[in-house]
């Protein structure tokens, strides 16, 4: 057998192998509008991921270094979701977003656009970090929720301090609400809704 004949034979074998693989893929369940079920999204847990305590420096206070400003402690929470794919085909999580409320005050909205694939019948985990800014949260309360604070007889600064210092003990309810996760399979789109409360 010449070298050229061998090459030709190898190419044919490659084509057959690729054709076989393509055939196998075609035999797997294909997503359709009827059989594509929206994956289930549930809050597995919430963690205080990074913590600076509570402090606030007004811009009247000169900093040791850097620029003066109104600055409140950040608070980094991590929300860990379980994403269960009930379908016999892989689905892609395209985006996931939700609002976080402390007590009944909406304080932050989060969005993750990190794409991930979930194998058929499997459950993945998604961790979304939520950075709360002490000063911006205070301003948001003052600009939008001042009437609610007045009804609760508390000022924005004291309320933020209570939340920042009580978060690790689960001293108040944290809600995940208005959740929407966008999934794709081929060109089909399904959106799952979710909500949860923490501590449970």
């Amino acid at each position: 057998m010449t070298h050229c004949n061998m090459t030709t034979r190898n190419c044919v074998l490659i084509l057959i192998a690729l054709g076989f693989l393509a055939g196998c893929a075609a035999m797997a369940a294909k997503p359709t509008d009827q059989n594509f079920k929206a994956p289930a999204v549930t809050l597995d847990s919430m963690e205080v991921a990074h913590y600076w305590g509570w402090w606030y420096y007004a811009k009247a206070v000169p900093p040791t270094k850097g620029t003066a400003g109104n600055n409140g402690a950040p608070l980094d929470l991590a929300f860990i979701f379980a994403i269960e794919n009930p379908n016999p085909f892989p689905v892609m999580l395209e985006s996931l977003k939700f609002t976080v409320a402390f007590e009944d005050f909406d304080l932050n909205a989060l969005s993750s656009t990190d794409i991930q694939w979930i194998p058929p019948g499997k459950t993945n985990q998604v961790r979304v970090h939520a950075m709360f800014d002490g000063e911006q949260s205070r301003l948001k309360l003052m600009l939008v929720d001042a009437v609610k604070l007045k009804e609760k007889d508390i000022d924005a600064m004291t309320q933020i301090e209570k939340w920042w210092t009580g978060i690790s003990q689960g001293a108040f309810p944290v809600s995940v609400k208005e959740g929407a996760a966008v999934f794709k399979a081929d060109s089909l789109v399904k959106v799952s809704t979710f909500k949860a409360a923490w501590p449970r």
Partner: protein
Amino acid sequence: MKSRYFAWLWTVLILFAPAASEAVDINIGAFSDLGGATSDAGKEYAMGVAEAIHYINDAGGINGRTVKLFQLDYGYRIPEVLVKYSLLKQKKCVAILGWGPGDTEALAPAIAGDKLPYVSAYYAAHLCDPGKSPYNLFIATDYSTQARGLVTAWFDKKWPAKPDFGKRKPRIACAYMTASPFTSASIKAAKDQATLLGFDIGADQDVSLFAIDTQSRIAALKEFKPDVVLHTNTVMSVAAALRDSDALELGADHLIISSGFTENLVQQAGKAAEGAMGCAPWAFFGQNVKLMDKVEAYAKKYNPGISPENRTIHTVQAWANVLGLAEALKRADKAGDLSGQGILKKGFETMRDFEIGLGMAPVSFSASDHRPQSKAGIYEIRDGKFAPLDEVDLKSRWPEKWKREWLGW
């Protein structure tokens, strides 16, 4: 023999390689406030941006090319938006959908230097002068045109029905946070319009954006006995001023620019909002106008966990900016130039009376004038609903002043 080998290889590559002719995505950046001071409106605006981009892509994209959206939350922290602007440049975004006064003003020098179109939801008239900020754009009626339109509509529609009409000059005062460039942006134009129409103008009342008790300000206004008060703050403090005006029986009508004239005003001010007039460049969520069916359908599809009753005009506001930018991109792409300068010159500045839909007046841009609309859409709150009252076309009514005097302030 070698040629046969390459022929086989070529066949394999053609059969299994991805199509080389696939259109390349167009990258668009967006800044949002999801957890900062303005996140109440910012969150919904951000949802509207994402939903509208889905619609654009489903409707064929930009001449067949998909829009890839890089939507970043900056929490209304100015240092962060400066850093994230660099990230969007690294992503090779051809334009950015901005948010409010904070990011728009902070980034204005950078986007002018980079020639990067920045379409935001901050409608100050100084951004409409292409000689000063050519790459700052928006699809809305600028705040000054809104204020001029409101004062004119009240003068035309309400003043003639007052008992003192024909006996004395009408009286107007402005209530806003005087230290804020955002709330002060349209005051000079409002007073100019009031002077043009022959009003007596009272002292400004300093109402903080954080105010929930404005009784001292309303009491001060009572001495002047205004027929009408112009408000340029955001919803919470405008609602407080309306409630206190009602409680203290000020007896004046109220004019409100778009920043304070939303569905939440009715919720927060209750019956005190009845009769208030406001400018809304776009329809309110759910009103029967062109494309509202799409706005509602995409809201339901991508955010089914939020009831339509809780969606507001901020969604429609976002759609307007996205649709306007998409139109500019299509025109620039057709002209073969998706550079920032191309999007501006061959896109935006070629629009003449372009109909966006969404209940908006037609949109025009030119190389010398970036005021998108000369018509101010005026609504009145009746039985808790927003009823169209008037449309004031400032350009056709005062063509010389529109052309030579009013641009940029």
